[in-house]
């Protein structure tokens, strides 16, 4: 199946049926992973390796008066101590730099200040205790709404609110205000027969990947550096190193290791620069592995939020007006996910009149990072309860109500963008037809809730190369790392395009010296975007090989075509070469063939992936404990390249959503101390907490992708908290205005405590 923009490709009359896409081969690398051979971030070992540890702020907000590292430097076994002073003068963007190693202020508990490289992690840790930092402690601000007040303590004296209305004159913790307006919200509300308004707060939540961040740096005598790191994107790490170390990109090689989960949290770089600085100063390779408490204190959680939603509908069931205010905690530096929260909040619906205001607010907590569909889960938790309430007030079945109002092709979002073809209605219809929706609940204190969510897809930039081997196999290099089986999906698309079996495609993740720039694996983009690059590289291979066949046969290249793994020419039906036969003749027909794919997937207009979830829960009215009994997740995935993998993404996303809904959260004391810095009290769901989630895949192909692929990885987390909240409402008759919905909160809402 040729690329839409690949005009030079001969188009077969009837496209061959898909052979590879849609099958369920074992994931690439699975054998290495079950035998312990896969190399993750902390598994890198080098001769002479030193171990780095990071000194972190005990205060949520303080000015650094002085740092004295002399005692640590002379401690036996210590080879280097670094602070922000070791960063080249003026290097890097200010906030990036300060978050790597604090400048004049610390802005959260856990903020890195200095680092030590020593013979062992224990010695490094002992030396940390010898670094003397004098602080002038400042009052912290931890709550997003408090931080927005005019008299709140300021984190950044120079920060002024930016918006399209211009830059504000006076300093503020509000870094940015964004707004979307569609139609005339006031007139819309005037038309409404029913109006519901509610406010919601959600707590910061950590991505909770099991592998802590780890980075190892080795400097070469020529002044170049190699960095091994577990990351969602080796190239962004390289750019980060380049800007903070003032080093040309050509002198930096970032080698991505296997990655033990990321979910957005490994899209940011935390210890790479520190490892590089330590290694350079010590003159020996250095490895920095974060401890779990460091991960929980100082790496990106997802923002805590305050969200107010107001919606109005007519008696005939049409939503006519909506309004939302979203205030997102960015953490210590600007850049929360409020933009995508604002983009997602009304994304499932066709609403003629709406206004959305979003605020990006700094607070004395770690700088937030992306987390699976960043910003969307809190927004959908809020809006789906309001939608549910409207349906209830109008006496309409909640699913029918959503179907009545769902977005369709051409519907304009609040931001004005029209939707391409997206399966909103198809997903709702599949949910309505699913037996779960009408199944009896089978007991008291049980409720069923639904919620509808959406995640728009970003495609980003990707590179792949494919080299043809003489035996007819190919070697595929991917610029994207292997997050959640993405590499298998990429290889499957290449195999499909090349007409080869998957076993004939050897796939590897490339380091930054071996392939062109590729964006971070995030935003549900990898299978789509890097898949496109693989398809393009495959098309390039085929085009080059058609030319070789033409040369062999002495026919014009336009007469040669490739279909079902064979080259033929329209001039002579007796001439036919299999891929393998031609591959064996490459060296005699002009040398090696290597195809390249370098794409900016955003040139394509693409839609995202909607999902409707159905949750059955049981509430123990005495203890407030919630058990999720049954869970169905219906999602439009465009086309499932590897259905097993897509289902795995859905199951994993729902599991994370259940944790977020019911107990996960980073809880801070008034002084800004993280109260639960271990996995014991920052509880993640266990095998006892998650029911068997049933994924229902709906395939409304994305017309811009040759195989119809949509990104699938993020949507599964989006509706979960909303669906559980709506289920709890059926039991408690109370709307849940806070996340997580802990037993104590539920009992409080019920008036029991």
């Amino acid at each position, binding site marked *: 199946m040729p690329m839409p923009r690949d005009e030079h490709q001969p188009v077969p009359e009837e496209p061959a049926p898909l052979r590879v896409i849609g099958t369920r081969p074992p994931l690439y690398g699975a054998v290495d992973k079950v*035998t312990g051979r896969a190399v993750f971030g902390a598994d890198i070992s080098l001769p002479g390796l030193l171990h780095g540890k990071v000194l972190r702020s005990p205060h949520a907000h303080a000015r650094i008066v002085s740092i004295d590292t002399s005692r640590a430097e002379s401690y036996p076994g210590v080879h280097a101590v670094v602070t922000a002073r070791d960063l080249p003068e003026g290097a890097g963007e200010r906030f990036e730099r300060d978050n790597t190693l604090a400048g004049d202020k610390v802005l959260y508990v856990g903020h890195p200040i200095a680092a030590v490289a020593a013979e062992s992690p224990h010695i490094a840790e002992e030396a940390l205790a010898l670094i003397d930092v004098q602080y002038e402690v400042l009052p912290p601000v931890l709550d997003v709404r408090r931080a927005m007040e005019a008299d709140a303590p300021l984190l950044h004296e120079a920060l002024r609110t930016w918006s399209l209305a211009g830059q504000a004159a006076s300093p503020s913790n509000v870094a940015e205000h964004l707004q979307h307006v569609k139609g005339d919200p006031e007139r819309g509300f005037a038309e409404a027969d029913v109006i519901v308004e509610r406010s919601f707060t959600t707590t910061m939540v950590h991505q909770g990947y099991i592998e802590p961040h780890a980075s190892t740096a080795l400097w070469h005598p020529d002044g170049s550096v190699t960095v091994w790191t577990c990351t969602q994107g080796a190239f962004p790490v390289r750019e980060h190193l380049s800007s903070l170390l003032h080093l040309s990109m050509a002198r930096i090689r970032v080698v991505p290791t*296997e990655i033990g989960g990321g979910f957005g949290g490994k899209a940011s770089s935390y210890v790479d620069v520190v490892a590089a600085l330590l290694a350079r100063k010590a003159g020996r390779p250095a490895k920095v592995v974060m401890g*779990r408490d460091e991960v929980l204190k100082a790496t990106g959680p997802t923002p805590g939020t305050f969200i107010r939603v107001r919606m109005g509908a007519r008696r005939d069931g049409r939503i006519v007006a909506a309004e939302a205010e979203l205030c997102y905690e960015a953490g210590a530096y600007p850049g929360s996910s409020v933009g995508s929260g604002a983009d997602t909040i009304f994304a499932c619906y066709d609403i003629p009149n709406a206004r959305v205001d979003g605020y990006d607010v700094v607070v004395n907590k770690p700088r937030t990072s992306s987390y699976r569909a960043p910003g969307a889960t809190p927004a959908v938790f809020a809006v789906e309860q309001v939608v549910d309430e409207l349906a209830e007030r109008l006496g309409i079945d909640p699913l029918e109500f959503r179907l009545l109002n769902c977005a369709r092709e051409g519907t304009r979002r609040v931001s004005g963008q029209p939707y391409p073809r997206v399966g909103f209605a198809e997903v709702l219809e599949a949910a309505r037809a699913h037996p779960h929706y009408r199944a009896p609940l089978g007991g008291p204190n049980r409720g069923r809730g639904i919620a509808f969510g959406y995640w728009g897809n970003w495609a980003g930039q990707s590179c792949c190369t494919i080299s043809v081997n003489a035996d007819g196999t190919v070697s595929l290099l991917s610029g994207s790392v292997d997050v959640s089986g993405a590499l298998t999906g990429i290889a499957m698309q290449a195999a499909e395009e090349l007409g080869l079996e998957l076993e004939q495609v050897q796939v590897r993740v490339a380091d930054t010296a071996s392939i062109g720039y590729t964006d971070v694996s995030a935003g549900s983009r990898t299978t789509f975007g890097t898949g496109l690059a693989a398809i393009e590289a495959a098309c390039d291979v085929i085009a080059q090989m058609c030319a070789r066949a033409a040369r062999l046969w002495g026919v014009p290249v336009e007469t040669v075509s490739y279909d079902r793994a064979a080259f033929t020419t329209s001039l002579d039906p007796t001439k036919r070469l299999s891929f393998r036969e031609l591959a064996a003749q490459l060296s005699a027909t002009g040398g090696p063939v290597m195809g390249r794919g370098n794409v900016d997937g955003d040139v394509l207009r693409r839609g995202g992936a909607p999902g409707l979830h159905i949750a059955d829960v049981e509430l123990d009215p005495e203890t407030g404990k919630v058990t999720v009994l049954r869970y169905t997740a219906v999602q439009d995935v465009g086309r499932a390249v590897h259905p097993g993998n897509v289902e795995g993404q859905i*199951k*994993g996303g729902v599991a994370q959503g259940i944790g977020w809904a019911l107990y996960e959260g980073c809880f801070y004391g008034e002084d800004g101390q993280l109260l639960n810095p271990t*996995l014991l009290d920052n509880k993640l769901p266990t095998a006892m907490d998650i*029911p068997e989630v049933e994924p229902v895949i709906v395939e409304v192909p994305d017309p811009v992708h040759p195989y119809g692929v949509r990104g699938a990885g993020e949507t599964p987390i989006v509706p979960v908290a909303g669906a559980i909240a709506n289920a709890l409402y059926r039991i408690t008759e109370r709307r849940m205005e806070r996340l997580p919905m802990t037993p104590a909160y539920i009992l409080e809402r019920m008036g029991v405590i």
Partner: protein
Amino acid sequence: MDGKVRVQATINGQPVEFLCEPRQSLLECLRDVLGLTGTKEGCSDGNCGACSVLLNGRLVNSCLVLGVEVDGQEVTTVEGLAGPDGLHPLQQAFIDHAALQCGYCTPGMLLAAKALLDREPEPSEERIRQWLAGNLCRCTGYDRIVRAVQDAARRMRREADAHAEG
């Protein structure tokens, strides 16, 4: 370096002798001293199970055991699961059931599951879920892990029966 202790143990069936500091955990000894990096660290405080190994057949979090404690003992890590004839039934079942995504929890899960099946060849789903509750997985949502363990249990029972008959 001074202050190190000599430890003799059997690791994955092989006699091994190594030097470790008294404060080093078994996890550190396996990974940093012996180069057995298949065992993973997720928390170092006993809350994630990524570091699970078998100590004399019993499931332990290797981050909570000191290296010196294994002197004279037997340790099994993920590197010791596969035999000369190939993967352990649990390893094969994890692949067949796609019971892993990132794979970081996998070594610990495999060892935890082995500890269960070695003593209870036919555990119920409930029992498997309870037993594995000390091993966190952030990627899969667990049900495929549970299915894989059930399937491996079946395969192991069949193998044991065949063995008994043959």
